[in-house]
């Protein structure tokens, strides 16, 4: 268990216009942790996939609450941990959703989780129907990725 040495939390509307912000915020936070430029590009790509999933899938219909995404970033001794959380409809079958090519939309690849798993050292997904979904990704500078 690594000690938490720094953290930041940001909540934003679940709209496509915030994707670039989320990517840059995560990469900026991780920039001082020993990652290469290529590593930071990988972090941006993984965050983009996770936040896109929230925007596309978590809030399919009009609801009373304002759809938001909570991104929590932690710098641990030798890791960068980022979690992306929504309060949306949840995922009925997380194991199925993580399989390559599984999508609810024919216009999309269904490769978001596959990319996250290829880019991060560890991906953990917790979801509850009607409550929301939390994706946590761990990146290490020396992963050699």
């Amino acid at each position, binding site marked *: 268990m690594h000690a938490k040495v720094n953290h930041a939390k940001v909540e934003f509307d679940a709209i496509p216009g915030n994707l670039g912000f989320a990517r840059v915020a995560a990469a900026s936070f991780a920039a001082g942790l020993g990652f290469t430029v*290529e590593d930071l*590009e990988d972090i941006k790509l993984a965050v983009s996939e996770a936040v*896109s999933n929230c*925007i596309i899938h978590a809030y399919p219909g009009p609801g009373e609450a304002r759809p938001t995404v909570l991104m929590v970033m932690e710098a641990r001794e030798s890791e960068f941990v980022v979690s992306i959380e929504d309060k949306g409809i949840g995922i009925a079958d997380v194991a199925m959703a993580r399989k390559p090519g599984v999508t609810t939309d024919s216009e*999309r690849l269904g490769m978001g989780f596959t*990319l996250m798993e290829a880019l991060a050292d560890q991906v953990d997904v917790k979801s509850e129907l009607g409550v929301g979904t939390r994706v946590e990704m761990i990146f290490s500078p020396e992963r050699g990725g």
Partner: protein
Amino acid sequence: MIEWEVSGNSLVVEIAGELDLTCADEFRRVLDSLIDSHPGVARVILCMDRVAFIDSSGIGVLFGRHRRMALRGGTLAIASPSPQAMRALDLLGVPSVIHVYDTLKQALAAEAEVRKCTRK
């Protein structure tokens, strides 16, 4: 940002910027419009050296246009992808489906070679 020109039998499309969910629908609409307005071209070459970022939303559009060109007997190729774009393309196995060339010159030369072969 998208710019385009016709070179020989190819429609060369220069793409710049970030291709994610924010602009995927617009990207798709513009490419489809370009493809539909050039029924005579056999090949679409997407130049991606000025693509600063692409994720699976953007790559999904590429696969869709690849299928669209295949349906009319044509092809789609990618030329000079930026390092970030190449990383994302590799991770999603794009080069096994869509031809990826290091340079536009190579992509155009390959296209000319195809035409030479089909004339024999």
